[in-house]
Structure formats: structure tokens, C-alpha cells
């Protein structure tokens, strides 16, 4: 099984454990199997947004209404998200889980994108947003539990949390 297949299966397992109501995404080739799984899911509404900050607003509205929404997009989208994340999600204490697919890190081929993505984790942490990283350093078997714990953490801290996922080979 490839890293992409193994990683996506683990992400699906983790999200199933959460029991999410909505998956809000912007497509990514590595994360496509996760989106496909929830598009076919009878209990989850899965839809894309045009820009990531829009997703932050929607996820905040879902949280206010008591529903579980998870955001799933590339880490470059965190750049678009940062004002909404800080001035609304952080400032108003909105619990929100973001799964950010790594464009930087081992396996990244695109020189332009890693100019941003190599700094994405530090950027998030510099705004005091909690970040966890799931990559080659964490056995894939532990990813589902890590995603579940990250979801618990958003409610314990009343804040957004970003889980970075490296699904590349």
C-alpha cells in the first residue's frame, strides 16, 4: 500500500471516529480518496468552497449551531485563511479542526509551492494556533487516534487546531 493510500485510510478512520457532520474541502490530488469517501457517505455532507477563508466562516457557523465540521485543504490555503482564523476563530474562541495537507516537506516537487509551505507550520504557531504534524515520524497506525485527540483538543481549548498531514511518498 502506498503512503498516500495508507495515509488517506488513516485520515478516513480518524474522521469516522470523530463522527463529523460536514467535511468542507478544497480539492487536493493526494487527499482525493478522503473526499471521495465522504462524498459517498450517507451521514456526512461534503462540499467544496472556493477559498479557504470562506471555509473558516462556515465551520465557525457550524460550531455555533452545534455541528461537527472539519476543514480539509492544502497547507498553502492556510495563508488565505489566516485573517479569518485569527480575527474570528481565535478571537471568538471557535472550536475548529483543520486538516492541512502538506505541500512542503519530503516528497514535494514544486519549487514555487514549498516557498510558502516550508514555513506554514511556523506561521501557524506564530499566531498561537496549535499545530500537530503527522508525517513519517508518526506511525500511520497512530494517525486516527491523533486526529480524534486533536478534535477533542479543539473543544478543550475552545480554539482552532491545525493537523498537518504529509500524504506524499
Amino acid at each position: 500500500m502506498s503512503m498516500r493510500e495508507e495515509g488517506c485510510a488513516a485520515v478516513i478512520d480518524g474522521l469516522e471516529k470523530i463522527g463529523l457532520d460536514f467535511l468542507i474541502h478544497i480539492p487536493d490530488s493526494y487527499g482525493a480518496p478522503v473526499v471521495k469517501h465522504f462524498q459517498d457517505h450517507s451521514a456526512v455532507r461534503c462540499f467544496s468552497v472556493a477559498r479557504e477563508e470562506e471555509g473558516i466562516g462556515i465551520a465557525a457557523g457550524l460550531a455555533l449551531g452545534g455541528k461537527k465540521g472539519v476543514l480539509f485543504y492544502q497547507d498553502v490555503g492556510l495563508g488565505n485563511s489566516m485573517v479569518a482564523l485569527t480575527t474570528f476563530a481565535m478571537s471568538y474562541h471557535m472550536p475548529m479542526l483543520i486538516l492541512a495537507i502538506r505541500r512542503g516537506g519530503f516528497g514535494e516537487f514544486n519549487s514555487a509551492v514549498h516557498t510558502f509551505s516550508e514555513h506554514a507550520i511556523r506561521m501557524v504557531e506564530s499566531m498561537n494556533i496549535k499545530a500537530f504534524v503527522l508525517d513519517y515520524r508518526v506511525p500511520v497506525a497512530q494517525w486516527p487516534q491523533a486526529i480524534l485527540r486533536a478534535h477533542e483538543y479543539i473543544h478543550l481549548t475552545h480554539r482552532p487546531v491545525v493537523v498537518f498531514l504529509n500524504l506524499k511518498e
Partner: protein
Amino acid sequence: MLAQRIDALETISREFPYDPVVFTCGATSREMAHIDRRPNHLYVVDSMGLVSSIVLGLSLSLDEAPINRCVGVEGDGGMLMNMNALSTIGYLQPRKLLLIVLDNESYASTGGQPTFTDKLDLAAIAESCGLKTWKAEDVPGLRKALASAVEVDGPGFIHMKIAPGNTSVPLLLDDPVTLGYGFSMWLKTRLAG
């Protein structure tokens, strides 16, 4: 003669005393909080453009709840900043969503610099995205549009031209976390019935 923003806000607030209403940043939230502060109001003191997305999330989450409408009050500048929200709303068709854009053709909170809306028709754009639209140019027209909009399933969009400028009111200096918590507690109580 075009209405002042504060008069439009008062009308909207009176129309929705028991439904969630989310207000955009700057003078809109300040004026609303000054004249008729209510627990069902969520004042978004920054995050320009995000109201339409927040109210979309609320509408999706409260689709089966005993809430009639989830209302967002946005300005023309904010709507232009997050115009893609209209396409998402149009695609998802949240039936309880009502977005009201108070359009003074300017960034009034920052000194009145012009937006594009003297040439763009925001209602036509919303309609092309699949929202049901109404137009108003004065407070009686707004009342009429609101009365029509709550009679049918949404998503609805009311476009109201208002006079430029702001009413002089105090700044809204509350810690955002208290604004969010107060609204959240009101909503929980409201849903508990």
C-alpha cells in the same frame, strides 16, 4: 431619499427578535449595538467579508432546528470581499439563510472611499448564483422585502441602497470572546426551547 444605515438596522433587528442575526464589522456592528443590542445578535468586529460564510454555516447547522431564519447583515464592501460566498450559498441552497446587503456604494467605515457598486448590481449577481432576491430603497421598502423573504424558503438576498456615511456612536470595544459566548448561550437556550 435613501435611508440611513442605522434606520435599516433598527428595522432588521425588530423583524428578527428570536432568530440569529450576524452583523458585519465597523460602523454596522457599532450602530446596531448602540441602538438595539440584543442577545440574538452576533457582532463580528473584524473579519471583513466573513458574515455571509458564518451565516451559511449557521443555516446549515440549524436546518432542522426550531429557528425561522439565519440572517446576515453585510455591506457592499464586505460582499465584494467574499463574493465567492454567493456561489457556495447558491450551490448549497440553505433554506433558512437570509443575507441582507446594505449598499452605500462606499467603504463608509474607512472614510467613504467608493466601491464598485455604483456600476455592479449585487442583486443580479446573487440571483445568478441561485438566491431569491428582493430590492429596497427605503425603510418601508425594506419592511416589504423582509415580509416577502420570510414567507418563502431561501436562500434569500435583500439588496438595499442606503445613504453614505455613518451615525456617530461609541466604538464597540467588547472582548470578542464575550460577544461570541453571549450569542452562543442565547442560541443554546433558544434551541432548548
